[in-house]
C-alpha cells in the first residue's frame, strides 16, 4: 500500500566523495587550523567503511576533484527527499562545480532531478534540516531566501520554514535529527534560540536531545532493516561530554565516528554523505 511520508531514516544508498589532496591546504574554513591530510583520509575511510560494512548501504563513491577542495562535503550539493533530488547552488562560489558530479550520480540512481538554476538563489544542503515531517532551512551566509523558496517548490508536500542561523556555519552545524521526531541540538544560546524558533514554526511536537557541544549535535540517524535505530555520532576523544550524552541512548545502535580533522574545515558528520532511500519502485 502506498504511503507517503513514511519511514524516516530508511536509507539504501549513500553518495560520498573521495578526499582531494587539495583539501588540507585549500578547503574553505572559518577557523585557521591546519589539517593533517593523512588523518582526513583515515577519517573518510572509516566513515565510508561504516556505511558500507557496518550498515550495508550501497555506497557510490565519487572520485575526488583536485580543483574542488571541498568536494568531500557532498551534502551541500544536493538535497534528497524520497525520489526527488534538488541539486543546489552552493553559497560559496568556489563550490558550485561540485554539483555537477552529484547530479550525474543521482541521475544514475534514477531520482527526479530538480536543478536550482536561478542565479540569485543559493543553498547549501548543510542548511537544510529535514525532520521527516517538514523542512527547516537555515538562512545563513551560504543560503538565502530564494534558495529556500526553490526548495519549497521542489518538495511541495512539506512545509518549509526558514530559520535564522544566528551563529555558526550552517544550520546543521549545531543541530540534526537523532531519531524520529528527535532533534539533537547544541546548548549554545544561538542554537537554543534557533530551536525555539523551529518549535514555534512547527505544527509537530519534537523531542530534543541537548548536547553540551554545538558541533556534536551533528549526528546521522538511520533506521535500517535488521539494525533498527542507528546513530553515527561524535567520539569521546573529540567531545567527551557530548559523547556521554549519546551513550545514554538506549534504543540506538551507537557508532562513534571521528570527525576531528574534517571538523577543522567546518565539515560535520552529515556533510560527508547524501543518503538515499531507493524503495522498490512505486
Amino acid at each position, binding site marked *: 500500500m502506498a504511503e507517503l511520508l513514511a519511514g524516516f531514516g530508511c536509507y539504501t544508498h549513500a553518495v560520498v566523495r573521495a578526499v582531494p589532496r587539495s583539501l588540507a591546504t585549500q578547503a574553505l574554513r572559518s577557523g585557521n587550523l591546519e589539517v593533517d591530510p593523512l588523518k582526513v583520509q583515515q577519517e573518510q575511510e572509516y566513515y565510508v567503511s561504516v556505511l558500507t560494512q557496518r550498515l550495508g548501504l550501497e555506497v557510490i563513491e565519487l572520485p575526488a576533484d583536485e580543483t574542488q577542495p571541498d568536494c568531500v562535503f557532498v551534502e551541500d550539493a544536493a538535497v534528497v527527499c524520497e525520489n526527488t533530488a534538488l541539486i543546489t547552488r552552493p553559497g560559496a562560489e568556489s563550490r558550485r562545480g561540485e554539483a555537477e558530479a552529484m547530479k550525474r550520480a543521482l541521475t544514475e540512481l534514477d531520482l527526479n532531478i530538480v536543478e536550482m538554476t536561478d542565479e540569485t538563489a543559493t543553498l547549501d544542503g548543510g542548511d537544510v534540516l529535514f525532520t521527516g515531517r*517538514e523542512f527547516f532551512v537555515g538562512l545563513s551566509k551560504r543560503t538565502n531566501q530564494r534558495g529556500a523558496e526553490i526548495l519549497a517548490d521542489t*518538495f511541495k508536500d*512539506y512545509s518549509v520554514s*526558514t530559520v535564522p542561523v544566528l551563529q555558526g556555519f550552517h544550520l546543521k552545524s549545531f543541530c540534526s535529527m537523532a531519531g524520529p521526531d528527535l532533534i539533537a541540538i547544541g546548548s549554545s544560546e544561538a542554537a537554543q534560540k534557533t*530551536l525555539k524558533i523551529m518549535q514555534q*514554526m512547527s505544527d509537530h511536537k519534537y523531542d530534543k536531545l541537548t*548536547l553540551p557541544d554545538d558541533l556534536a549535535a551533528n549526528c546521522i540517524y538511520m533506521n535500517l532493516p535488521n539494525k533498527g535505530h542507528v546513530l553515527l555520532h561524535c567520539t569521546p576523544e573529540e567531545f567527551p561530554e557530548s559523547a556521554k550524552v549519546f551513550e545514554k541512548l538506549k534504543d540506538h545502535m551507537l557508532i562513534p565516528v571521528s570527525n576531528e580533522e574534517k571538523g577543522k574545515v567546518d565539515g560535520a558528520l552529515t556533510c560527508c554523505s547524501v543518503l538515499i532511500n531507493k524503495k522498490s519502485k512505486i
Partner: protein
Amino acid sequence: MTTEPETKPEQQGASAAPPQTAPPIDNELPPAAAHSTPVRKDQAGERDAGGKADQQPSEDDRTSHWSKSPVKVTRRPRNMQCKITLLDGSDYTCVVEKRDKGQVLFEKVCEHLNLLEKDYFGITYRDVENQKNWLDPAKDMKKQIRGIAWNFFFNVKFYPPEPALLSEDITRYYLCLQLRDDIMSGRLPCSFATHTVLGSYTVQSELGDYDPDEYGTDYISEFRFAPQQTKEMEEKITDLHKTYKGMTPAEAEMHFLENVKKLSMYGVDLHHAKDSEGVEIMLGVCSSGLLIYRDRLRINRFAWPKVLKISYKRNNFYIKIRPGEFEQFESTIGFKLPNHRAAKRLWKVCVEHHTFFRLVSPETPPKKFLTLGSKFRYSGRTQAQTRRASSQIVRPAPYFERSSSKRYTMSRSLDGAQRSTPMNTANGTRPTEMGTALYGTAKGVAVSDLITTVTPERKTTEDEGEQDRVMLVDSVALLEEEDESTKVTEVSQPSPLTPIRQDTRTDFTDTAVDGDLTATESDQDDESEIKTQFIKQNKEVNVFIRHSKLMIEEIDQTPDELLKHQTNISELKRTFLEGGTDRTGLTEWEKRLSSSPLRSPRLDEAPMIEPLVPEEMKQESAVGGSTTQDSLKDRRVDVPSESQKSHPEDIQSEEEKQPSDKPLDQPQSEPLGDTQQMPVIHTEMKTITYESMQQGEADEDTEPGILMSAQTITSETSSTTTTTHITKTVKGGISETRIEKRIVISGDADIDHDEALAQAIKEAKEQHPDMSVTKVVVHKETEITPEEGEE
C-alpha cells in the same frame, strides 16, 4: 387552485397540500415567481419538497417565528431559488424564503446530501468582487447576498486534522471530494509522488478494483488528479491501482485522507496580505493557528494559544501575541489586507477556526436587542461537540452513490473546476523581487518582529507616542464602516480627538491602579479600548482549561524560616483565594522563562530526551523543573502583592472592564456601526506564581545537585489530572526531596477552580505534613468575549 405541486411549489404551498404528496424533488423547482400565497403554507409545501421528516432545527425557528409575529404573515413573502454547487460538481436547487437565515439553506443541503456530521461544512458564495465568503448561518441570507445571484457552493469549512475520527464514511467521502477540488485548483499543492498515490486511491474508490478487461490503458485519463496531469502520472496511478484488489471505496478514501492530511497545506485557508513593509505575504488560517507565508515559505506561525487577540480595523488585521521567551512585552502585529472586506473575512475565519478547534463550546450568542457590538461569533458546534455528537450517531451506514456511476459527469465537473477560480493559490509563487528585507528584520531576535510590530507595548507608557498612535488608531476606527468609500472623508474630521484624550487618561488610571507590573498589561490594550469603547459591553468568561500547580519542598531549615515560609504560603493562598485571579503574572513569568533554557542542559547532567515543548505549553513545563526557581528571586515578592491589589471580581482584566465603563462617554453615535465589526476574541493566559521568601537563599542552583531518584505518578478523575513528580537530590551534603504536583483541571466555568486549588493545597499538606508548600503556580487559560454575558 393548484395542480402540480412538484413543479409549482408556490401554488402547491397555497393549496396547503398534505406533506406526503409533495415529492422531494427540489432541484426541479422552477425559479420562484411572484405569488400571493400566504407564507406559512408556502413554506410548508416547500419544506415538504425539501424532503422527509421536518426535523431541522431551523424549522422550529420558523414556526415559532410565524406564530409570534403574525404581522409578517400578511407580508408578501419573497422566495428565492438557490443554486448550490455540491462537492461532486453537481448543482442542487432549492427554494428558500428571502429572509431565511443561512442555516435554513445549509440544513436543506445537508439533508439533501444525507450528511449528519455537518459541522465541518459550510456554504460559500462569491461576492461582487468574486471573493469567497462563508454564508453566516445565523444571519439573514438577504443581508449577506447583495447584488449577486443566489448561487452557492457547498464546501468543507473546518478540515478535521484526523479524518479517521469522523464517524461516517459519507462524511469522509465529501471531505475527499473537497480535497480533490483543493488539489485540482492548486490550493493544496503536492508532489508528483503524492498526486499518484492520491490519484490511485481516488480511482479505487470510484471504480473499484482494476479490471484489465473492462479498463484499457486509457481509462484513467478521464479522471482529473492534478493541475498538471501527465501521461507518466496516469501510468503510475494505474500501476498502483492494480495493487489495490479488494479495497472498498471507504477504505480507499480512508487511505486517501490519511495521506492528504499530512500535506503541509491541508486545511489551510489562505489570505493575501502585506506586512508593514508592503511585502506580499499570505496568512493561512488552520486548525492549529495562524501561519504566515512568504511565497512558499513559512516565515512564522502563531499557534492559537499564543494569540491573545484578533482584531481588524479598516483593511488592517491585527493579532496580539503573547510575549515570546525572549520578549518581555506582548506585541501586536498588523497586516494589510487588500480591503476592508478582506480584513473582516479573515477576522471571521480566524474567530471561527479558533472557536471550532480550540474551545469546548462556543460562546453563547448575544442577546439580540441589547448588544450593539459585533454579533458575529461562531455559532455552530465546536469540534469537541461535534465529535461527541457524532459518536452518538446510530443510523446504519447510509448508502450513497459515489461518483463512479456518474464518472463522466464527474470528470466534466472537475474540468469545470475553473468555476471556482482559486481565490488563493498557494502555489501562485510570484517571481517577486528577492526582498530580503523581511529576513533582515527576522534576523534579530523576536520572531514576532518578522512581520511588523505595530504596537510594541512598552511604548504605550510614553505620552507622546501614545497620543499619536491612539489618534491614528482612532481615526482608523472611525473609518470602519460597511461602506468604506463613503466614509473615507471622515479621516480628517477632528472629532476623534476628544475620545483620544479620554483613552489616554484611562490608560494612566489603569497604571495607577495596577502598579508597574500591570501597567504594561493594561496599557497595551488601549487599542482594544478604542475598538470597544463604543460598545455597550457585556462579558463572558469561558474558562476552559486551567492548571494549578503546587510545588512542595522539604529543605533543612530553621524553624524560623519554616514559620516564615508557611505564613507566607498561607498568605499567598489566601490572597489567591480571595483575590481570584489576575492576569499580571504573565510578563513576570516570561521573564523567568528566559533564563531556563540554558540551564537545563547543565542541570540534567544526565541529559535525557526532553519533549520539545511548544510555546503554548511552555509555561507549565518550565515550572516543572525546580531549576527555574532561582531566576525568580527578585520578582517573587511582587507577584503576590499584585494579586492583592487586583479586584476579586475581576475575572476579566482591566482591559475588558474598561470599555464597559467608557462607552457611553463617547460623544459619537456614528461609530456604533463600526463597532459591529470589532473583534470579539480574547484569549488570555494567566500565570500567577506564589512563592515563599525562603527560596531566595536556597536557590544557588548554579551548582546542581546529584539526582538520586525521580518518580512520576499520575492519577486522573473526570475533570482533573494530577501528576506528582518526586525528585530526590543531594546538594552539598543536604538531601532534598521535592514533590511537584501538577493538577490540570479542565472544564467550563462552572467548576470552582479556587475551591479545587484550595483543596489541592490542603491535601498536599495533609499528605506531607513534614513538608511545606513553597510554591504555587496557577496557570489559567481563559476565553473572554467582551460583548456578551453579564459580569
